[in-house]
């Protein structure tokens, strides 16, 4: 599967409704970050979590890097501090565009 985003691309994590289970942390929703690594295609959590490891839909995954000061209103660390997390492609949209 050809990844939609390149390393270095600015992306925003979608703020899709979550019910029952999610791998997309609440604190990265609607936050803008940078793609820093491609991860192998894998079954999306929405399928894997419901016993569809063999038959689930696969997507490219990305490591996305955020600035800690963007994520936490009360962050007291250094301005250069970052946080990285993994997202399936379906949870990302290009930065600077509305959904």
């Amino acid at each position, binding site marked *: 599967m050809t990844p939609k985003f390149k390393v270095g691309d600015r992306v*925003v994590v979608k703020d899709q409704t*979550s*019910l*029952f*289970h*999610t*791998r997309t*942390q*609440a*604190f990265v*929703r*609607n*936050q*803008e970050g940078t793609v820093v690594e491609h991860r192998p295609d894998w079954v999306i*959590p929405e399928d*894997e*979590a*419901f*016993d569809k*490891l063999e038959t689930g839909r696969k997507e490219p995954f990305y490591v996305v890097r955020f600035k800690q000061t*963007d*994520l936490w*209103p009360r962050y007291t660390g250094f301005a250069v501090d970052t946080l990285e*997390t993994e997202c399936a492609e379906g949870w990302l949209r290009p930065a600077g565009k509305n959904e």
Partner: protein
Amino acid sequence: MTTADQARFQTLTDGLAKIAPAEHDVQDSPYTITNAQYDVLRHVLHDVGGQPALSVPYLEKGEEAWEMNTYVTCECLGWRGAWNSEMRRRAEVDLGETQYFGYPYYARWLTVAAKVMVDKGLIPLDELCDRIDQVRDRLQEERK
């Protein structure tokens, strides 16, 4: 990102803090709730962050035998096709916040391992409970 997004996330985490172990809002199946309260109640727990927390003291702690036995049991259940890691995480979230926050980390694993075995029909619930009682009786006898 924007101040509005930060404020919104702060509202969510502040709301979650109210139903975390330290403090409680009274919850007695109210006739109505606000949309904000619905967002809080619908919030999905996540095992790698995002929950409100107080500062945690750093303690040196080695892994105990029961913890590693739990880990191996869960891996074997995966190897034999009973579940995968994502199903385990979902099952932990399904416990609800009281048990999720109340159990030690590997007690959560152990509880949901039992749950998946019952869900998959690998052991009937009454047989599992009988075995738990047998083991408890045996251990109590041994410790006399």
